[in-house]
């Protein structure tokens, strides 16, 4: 005979305000098999948990029903309390009489009847519970970090500093990411390279970090603690092991092409590095623009290379790695130039985006840090900055705020004025969002010290007039239309997810939001985790972020990885699917239904059956519902249990 204890929580007045908890306990006492029922104000509190433990021991309970809040809130609390009292934690069931009863009803009588029914259903279920043991998995104490920008490097460094090896995969030829393109950084105006390049060098020489540049993650299988990752190394057509980084090839290459890194403002050679301080300092041949690949002749680089490192025959190589955790830090992109025709971006050379303005400012950029407009190289005297280009524009762009633009635009206005003291910067804005340490003060400095004129309103049109660009906007503060004849127009285009991010999300089986940014497990309480255990997020892959936020989040992700690695083995909920092989017909109808690819066929002597990888299974139960022969069961949620629950509710 089962000995079941029922604990009805008041939850202060959350439950007791609507439900007569004493009557619920009384009704429970009348259920056959229930030997104990009591109420308490807060069972989740220490004294409340002690009451449960005491009853388990004194009344020798074989099952526990806690009638309280949602199981997502305190199921683990009460299971742990049962475990400490010597009861298998999976013999505890939660009857949710708060979210599913007291919070959604006002009639005390009806709510009390409903609460009693929910409790009775869970008593019926707990009678059919079986003790379960947590699943244990080994942990590979090696991490994969995808993305070699500032966030990825921070995560890799933190994990490696704690003594765990890291593989850092970067799709581009060098570390640094977006930050490598920046000139100075807000709100301190320290030069981006000066704080970035020591970090790239540190990462590259760290004995526990293996940097795989010019590489991509192609496939991820397995589960937390035990991922298997296929990483493809794209052909650089240069043997990086032989190469000594002398860059004679880059110097002698006859082919000049527009540089993406310089946002098209400067040129690069068909072989070479993005910028002189690049780490690793190894060149890549741009196959699409290389004369050798186009016409089969040239090969100047191969001839000049003193170590014979150029290898036109190089092909992609794929390697496999086992890792225990993955940090995704693939960063962001900006809206493509075609997005806003009214600003003439892509049509007028002197309309550029903010990343291009960073390059104009950079001492290693195409103009050596002198602000020159692209069309004729003249120093611009009137510069118009337009914020929210594509951001906060649900109709034609993105509904969200790109977050970083207010700050970098203020920075641009400052840097411009420092370099062109008699110039004037105009900033069209909608709101200045400067939430951050020292940020508002920074923006005010741009106004006070550097004379930036903020004009509240959007610009509707930019068109050429007498060799300049006429910007037609409005100042809603004074209610006047404003026209400015500008030498240069800089667009703060919306930050968007990288194009490759969607594919990567599919490879990782991690969710994205409607824009393609990776989704966190909980927006407030689990901001660096994903819904897939063992995969974490850092930086702008999740949403637009500035450098300091990206670094903080990367350290957070690293801490989560290290918490995983601090255990010898990982415990997982045993509430997973299991096959009754004697009943399984081997039809494998369950296999395509499983969203986690956890089901594989297994050969028995004379036939095949389905088999569940408990590490991959997330316990969703889709397979159990699909199984025609009733062989597939979800532990803790068997058909018998569910039917008993439903049967009790309907009687």
């Amino acid at each position: 005979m089962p000995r079941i204890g029922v604990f009805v929580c008041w939850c202060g007045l959350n439950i007791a305000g609507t439900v007569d908890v004493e009557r619920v306990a009384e009704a429970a006492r009348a259920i056959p098999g229930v030997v104990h029922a009591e109420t308490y104000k807060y069972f989740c509190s220490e004294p409340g948990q002690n009451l449960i433990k005491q009853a388990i021991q004194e009344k020798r309970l074989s099952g526990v029903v806690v009638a309280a809040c949602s199981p997502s809130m305190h199921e683990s609390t009460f299971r742990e309390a049962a475990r400490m009292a010597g009861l298998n934690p999976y013999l505890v069931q939660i009857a949710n009489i708060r979210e599913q009863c007291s919070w959604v009803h006002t009639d005390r009588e009806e709510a009390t009847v409903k609460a009693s029914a929910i409790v009775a259903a869970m008593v019926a279920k707990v009678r059919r519970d079986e003790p379960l043991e947590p699943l244990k998995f080994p942990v590979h104490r090696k991490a994969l970090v995808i993305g070699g920008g500032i966030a990825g490097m921070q995560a890799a460094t933190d994990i490696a500093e704690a003594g765990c090896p890291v593989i850092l995969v970067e799709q581009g030829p060098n570390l640094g990411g977006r930050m490598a393109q920046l000139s100075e950084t807000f709100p301190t105006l320290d030069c981006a390279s000066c704080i970035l390049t020591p970090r790239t060098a540190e990462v590259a020489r760290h004995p526990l970090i293996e940097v795989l540049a010019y590489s991509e993650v192609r496939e991820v299988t397995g589960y937390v603690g035990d991922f298997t990752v296929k990483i493809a190394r794209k052909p650089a057509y240069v043997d990086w092991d032989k190469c000594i980084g002398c860059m004679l090839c880059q110097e002698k290459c006859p082919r000049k092409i527009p540089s993406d890194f310089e946002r098209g403002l400067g040129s690069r050679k068909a072989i070479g590095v993005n910028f002189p301080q690049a780490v690793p300092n190894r060149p890549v041949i741009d196959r699409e623009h290389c004369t050798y690949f186009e016409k089969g002749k040239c090969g100047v680089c191969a001839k000049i290379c003193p170590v014979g490192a150029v290898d036109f025959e190089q092909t992609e190589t794929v390697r496999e790695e086992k890792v225990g955790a993955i940090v995704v830090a693939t960063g962001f992109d900006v809206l493509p130039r075609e997005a806003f025709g009214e600003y003439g971006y892509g049509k007028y050379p002197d309309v550029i985006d903010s990343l291009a303005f960073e390059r104009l400012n950079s001492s290693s950029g195409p103009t050596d840090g002198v602000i020159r407009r692209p069309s004729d190289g003249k120093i611009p005297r009137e510069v118009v900055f337009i914020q929210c280009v594509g951001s906060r524009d649900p109709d034609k762009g993105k509904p969200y705020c790109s977050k970083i633009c207010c700050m970098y635009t203020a920075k641009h206005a400052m840097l411009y004025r420092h370099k062109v003291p008699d110039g004037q910067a105009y900033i069209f804005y909608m709101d200045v969002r400067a939430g951050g340490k020292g940020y508002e003060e920074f923006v005010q400095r741009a106004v006070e010290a550097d004379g930036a004129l903020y004009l509240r309103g959007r610009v509707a049109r930019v068109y050429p007039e007498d060799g300049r660009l006429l910007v037609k906007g409005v100042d809603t503060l004074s209610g006047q239309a404003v026209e400015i004849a500008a030498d240069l127009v800089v667009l703060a285009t919306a930050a968007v997810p990288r194009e490759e991010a969607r594919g990567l999300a599919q490879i990782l089986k991690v969710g994205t939001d409607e824009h393609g940014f990776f989704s966190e497990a909980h927006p407030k309480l689990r901001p660096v985790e994903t819904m897939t255990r063992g995969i974490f997020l850092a930086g702008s892959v999740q949403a637009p972020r500035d450098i300091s936020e990206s670094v903080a989040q990367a350290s957070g992700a690293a801490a989560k990885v290290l918490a995983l690695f601090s255990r010898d083995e990982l415990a997982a909920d045993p509430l997973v699917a299991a096959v009754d092989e004697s009943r399984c017909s081997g039809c494998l109808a369950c296999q395509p239904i499983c969203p986690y690819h956890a089901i594989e066929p297994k050969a028995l002597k004379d036939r095949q059956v389905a088999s569940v990888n408990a590490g991959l299974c997330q316990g969703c139960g889709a397979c159990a519902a699909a199984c025609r022969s009733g062989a597939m069961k979800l532990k803790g949620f068997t058909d018998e249990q569910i039917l008993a629950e439903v049967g009790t509710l309907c009687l």
Partner: protein
Amino acid sequence: MRINRDTLRTDLIAKLQEISGETVALCYQCGKCSAGCPLEREMGILPHRVIRLLQLGQVEEALAANAIWLCAACHTCAARCPRGVDLSRTMEALRVILLRRGVPRAALGPPPPGAPQQTIVSFLRKYSS
């Protein structure tokens, strides 16, 4: 309105800032001055809008505003301003500039009923120069 470096940085604005000792760029247009002004109902162009005109280089428009004469110089705006701008001093500077020019005798009605004494004084200054 077309603006450029020259319209924004005029001698007149420099003069105005010199007389008042106040920097118009400091204002971030929160409007607290206008919200607390005892004469806001009569001003026509609200005090914060006067500052905005100056930020945009439109000094003549500010000089033409009745608001500068209605200003009672009560300094409530200065006491409330989060940016430490003493708008009363800017208003006074605008009056001084006009008085030095010799005020055109524009059609201006009597001060609004119930206006503080200082307003009446500023009207006297306008008509007596």
